């Protein structure tokens, strides 16, 4: 058991007047000052004027029971935990007075008493420790922190990152933008049949005799191979359309020879 090798943590400050009250027999039972039955027991134990280690638990139990009895005769209501403690102490008292009738599993009266003594001593020790703690030098009372605090200024800097490669790629992206639109027809390389028809309709009225189709390509469509191809194909398709509707005649003298057309109106 823990009881051996103990030291005593006696503390004589705020000595409760309970024992004095008890001896004077003017027991005005005032429990307000006590923090539970253990605290009351601790106060009662002081009346024995002994080390906590040497106190008689039996005597203490009798004192407590006497106290509770007096409270009862004075018709003072005791909180339930004080009564529970009283019942337990009555049981302990009987255990201590009548030697245990040997149930090995049951704790002996001495063991129970020792544990109670331990609890009292531990509570007293904590109380003394608390007093020592509060007696220490304290911040704001005995020692002081810096009066003018200099706050650390938080500076959040944003650093932008870009690599040369990104810039080069960015430039390339802009300059080759058109190449990256695979699903969009490049309109400026396309001369539609509708465009060709419109142009032909407006011009055939003025034409006289047979004219080579290729000399009839629109302005600005001869600058590149692609444009020439587009304009030629559409113009040819348009002449076919106009021939079909009877607006003009087409002829080709031999294979791969020049294709010529003539307005029907002009031949009239």
């Amino acid at each position, binding site marked *: 058991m823990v009881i051996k090798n103990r030291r005593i943590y006696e503390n004589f400050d705020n000595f409760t007047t309970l024992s004095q009250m008890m001896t004077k027999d003017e027991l005005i039972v005032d429990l307000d000052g006590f923090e539970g039955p253990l605290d009351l027991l601790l106060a009662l134990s002081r009346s024995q004027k002994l080390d906590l280690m040497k106190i008689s638990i039996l005597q203490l139990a009798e004192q407590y029971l006497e106290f509770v009895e007096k409270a009862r005769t004075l018709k003072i209501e005791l909180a339930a935990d004080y009564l529970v403690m009283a019942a337990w102490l009555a049981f302990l008292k009987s255990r201590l007075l009548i030697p245990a009738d040997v149930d090995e599993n049951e704790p002996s009266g001495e063991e129970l008493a020792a544990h109670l003594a331990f609890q009292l001593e531990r509570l007293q020790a*904590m109380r003394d420790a608390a007093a020592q*703690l509060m007696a220490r030098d304290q911040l704001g009372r005995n*020692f002081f922190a810096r009066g003018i605090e200099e706050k650390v200024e938080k500076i959040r800097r944003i650093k932008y990152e870009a690599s040369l490669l990104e810039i080069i790629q960015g430039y390339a992206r802009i300059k080759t933008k058109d190449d990256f639109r695979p699903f969009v027809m490049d309109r400026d390389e396309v001369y539609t049949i509708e465009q060709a028809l419109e142009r032909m309709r407006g011009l055939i009225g003025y034409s006289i005799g047979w004219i080579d189709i290729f000399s009839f390509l629109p302005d600005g469509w001869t600058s590149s191979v692609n444009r020439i191809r587009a304009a030629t194909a559409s113009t040819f398709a348009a002449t076919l359309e106009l021939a079909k509707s009877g607006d003009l005649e087409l002829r080709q003298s031999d294979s791969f020879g020049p294709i010529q057309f003539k307005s029907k109106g002009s031949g009239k």
Partner: protein
Amino acid sequence: MIEEEELTGSLFEAPKIDQQERMVEAILFASAEPVTLKEIISRLPHGCEPEQALKNLQEKYKSSGINLVKVGECWALRTAADLSFLMQKETIEVRKLSRAAVETLAIIAYHQSVTRAEIEEIRGVSVSRGTIDLLMELDWIKIGRRRMSPGRPVTFATTQNFLDHFGLESARDLPGLKELKSAGLLESPPPPGSVLTEKMLEDEDQQNDLFNEEKTI
């Protein structure tokens, strides 16, 4: 005036020790709160190892009106306690703590980490919500790890601020701790007659571990 060049040195060369001392001094001086070693390092130029500077400063301030104290993992400058009589003006009126609050604080400090049930068992009375709240509000206690026992109750432990307030370097420096420990008064033996369950043994191990663990740090 010392050039910043000289202070920060090159990118790879740490400033000289006397410069490091000045910097650590300034950092600690500017803060009312204790500063962690990590924070000090993070604010010093690259390559500084302020442990030596701290040691030198502690020595330098030893006999002065200001002392360099270690608080847990932190460092702080504080006025020397023997000069408190000069400081009426700065003294903060502290609300007087109730006996319940003081005792509860002591139990948490000496037994940490400790559950509410254990505090109640030691004091023999239930702990009111208000007491715990007050100690939390003062930032003297905090909720620690949950106990690995049925119900997984929360435990309470003291804070960095507790150490700072009571001028303790660590919880191991609590007055009389060693004596209490060797007297077995920081233990919570089960009452005789109760069955020693594995859970309780485990709990106790854990509890003892905390201070042992700390010792090995």
